[in-house]
């Protein structure tokens, strides 16, 4: 399925990451956005509020982020491609209903333009410290997908990809931007609509008599309907069976939770999305994402000039984590350098994935400003030893 030309702003533009994400959402067919203003993400909803009435779609400014996320799950079951947009404090408030989206298997997108935390932290300045919250923030066991674009151009594509993956896997997909990427303005080229491939909602062809809302085939993702189709389904946040009816037993729990986990984990390889450069013969590989990946480049160049073989690996999809990829490299290199704007989050995954085959050095940063390339350079030298 191709994008609708009426919703695609074909051409070359100068846009910041927030605006580019909004255009990505429109191109992806998003028709519903519920949001609450929060810096540094507000520009996304502002643009949706301006653009929707001209292309068809509903923006509603909710009373808080709890309501925003709940409305998004409702809208998904109403037949919309739905999105909400927020930053740290709002992301925390959304956690319960992100879990609801996982449990109800509601396809939807959550953009988090990360700022410095904890608490109110640094509202106008960058952070990358919500990466573990993205994976583990809601209670209970579940799997979801998180992307991390590093430029306005990529914010456009990442948002489209987020919608497509949410439809393919029926999970909430998170777009984990950061304030720098959200607020930097660069050239964004938006192609013709027929160059944008969309994953359609997996509506069932079964009749109401045959259809069970949570019965799945091989890929473990159930087919969907929308409210009003005449199926009279029940959907609950409680542990449920294939009919969607609550069942309070460990057997039902095992069956459901296992499927919710496996529908992502078994398809992990399909979900590896990294940018790699000169990792083949590298002694050191710098792993980063978002703005930190761009700050790493001058450090990598400097080290290369000095003859150190440095590879560059950027996580475009951060969750699920590309552990196989990391393990493959770990067997060949002297060490990883992980650059992220926090005191150690994705680095824990890198360490886990290396299975002790190589060393891992973190270049941390508390947020509020980007890393000094010099600090990254020093870590590369250390890793090359």
């Amino acid at each position, binding site marked *: 399925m191709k994008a609708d030309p009426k919703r695609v702003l074909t051409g070359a533009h100068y846009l910041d990451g927030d605006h580019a994400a909004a255009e990505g959402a429109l191109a992806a*067919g998003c*028709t*519903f956005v*519920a949001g609450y203003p929060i810096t540094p993400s507000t520009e996304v909803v502002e643009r949706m509020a301006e653009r*929707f*009435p*001209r*292309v*068809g*779609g*509903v923006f*509603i400014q*909710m*009373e*808080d982020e*709890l*309501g*925003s996320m*709940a*409305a*998004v*799950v*409702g*809208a*998904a*079951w*109403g*037949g*919309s491609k*739905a999105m909400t947009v927020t930053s740290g404090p709002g992301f925390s408030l959304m956690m*319960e*209903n992100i879990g*609801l989206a996982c449990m*109800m298997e509601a396809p939807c997108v959550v953009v988090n333009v990360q700022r410095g935390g904890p608490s109110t932290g640094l509202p106008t300045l960058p952070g990358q410290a919500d990466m573990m919250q993205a994976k583990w923030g809601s209670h209970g066991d579940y799997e979801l997908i998180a992307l991390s674009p590093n430029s306005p151009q990529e914010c456009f594509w990442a948002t489209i990809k987020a919608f497509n993956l949410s439809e393919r896997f029926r999970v909430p997909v998170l777009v984990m931007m950061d304030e720098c990427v959200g607020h930097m303005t660069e050239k964004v080229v938006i192609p013709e609509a027929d160059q944008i491939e969309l994953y359609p*909602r997996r*509506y069932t062809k079964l009749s109401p008599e045959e259809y069970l809302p949570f019965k799945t085939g091989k890929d473990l993702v159930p087919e969907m309907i*929308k*409210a*009003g*189709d*005449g*199926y*009279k*389904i*029940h*959907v*609950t*946040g*409680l542990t449920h069976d294939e009919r969607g*009816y*609550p069942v309070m037993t460990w057997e039902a729990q095992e069956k459901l939770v296992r499927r919710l986990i496996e529908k992502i984990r078994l398809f992990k390889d399909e979900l590896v999305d990294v940018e790699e450069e000169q990792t083949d013969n590298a002694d050191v590989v710098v792993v980063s994402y978002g703005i930190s990946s761009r700050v790493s480049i001058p450090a990598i160049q400097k080290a290369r000039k000095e003859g150190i073989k440095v590879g560059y690996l950027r996580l475009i999809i951060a969750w699920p984590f590309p552990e196989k990829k990391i393990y493959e490299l770990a067997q060949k290199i002297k060490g990883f350098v992980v650059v992220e704007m926090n005191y150690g989050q994705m680095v824990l995954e890198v360490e886990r994935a290396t299975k002790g085959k190589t060393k891992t050095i973190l270049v941390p940063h508390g947020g509020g400003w980007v890393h000094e390339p010099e600090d990254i350079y020093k870590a590369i030298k250390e890793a090359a030893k």
Partner: protein
Amino acid sequence: MSEVQLKKKKEELEEEHPMEHLLRMERMPHIWCPTCGIGTAVTAFLMALEKSQIPLKDTAIVSGIGCTGRVAGYVKLDSFHSTHGRAIPFATGLKLANPKLKVVVFSGDGDIIGIGGNHFLHAARRNMDLTVVCVNNFIYAMTGGQCAATTPITANTSTSPYGNFEQPFNLPYLAASCGAVYVARWTALDVRRLAKSLTEALQKKGFSFVEIICPCSTLYARRNRLGTGLDLMKFYHDNSVIKHGADLSELDIGFQSKIVVGKFIDRERPTFIEGVNQGLRGVLKEKFVEYGGPIDDD
């Protein structure tokens, strides 16, 4: 029992309940306690569903969490059992995504007014096109009988073991002052009047609100030594006063006080969708593209 009597009894048992086609019978028995009033409230709602003649295919019901939060699970409509307090915003998303739907929120006082109070205020203010039915049993029942934002002063709950000393909400007053276009209150005893009100609420465009005063026999009645659910029904019979259009500020409910019931508000005001569409069309003229529902709609 004679054979004739036995035969009659058997026929009675096999006879279909008049509401069966509106219930998920495969989920019976339900979880509610004997003499709980929620079942009666559901019966009144089902009567109203039939009476209002809105197409069932296009009707959805959303509940939050709690004893009343289980209602969505038993009603044979597209039904959603959301998170605690978030039935109204969930329903808001559902309605805006597919505006042809009639969306009902059916939940308890703790859910809609306690933890979800903020959404209630704003949905009423926006005149979101929802029918909100709030079963008020004065207590958090599902969790074992804790104090609520509706617990009458001096009433005993497990978290107010010496009595509640906080002022409870007056729900009709709250709904009306936030902008609800239809506001009524009945007790679970008034099934016919309640069903009539629910019918009107379902047929009303905009934010309609019906409060149902309802016995929680197991917790509220027992802790406060008020007898069974049946005794509370008798209490409602003797102590509820019908006063349509009553002064809203006089609708407070005290511990075992008189309960004023009736229809208090029935007015017109543009719904959220109407207001937004009219406003945008006025400003954007022919550039305005109205969102009419899911793209692949039949």
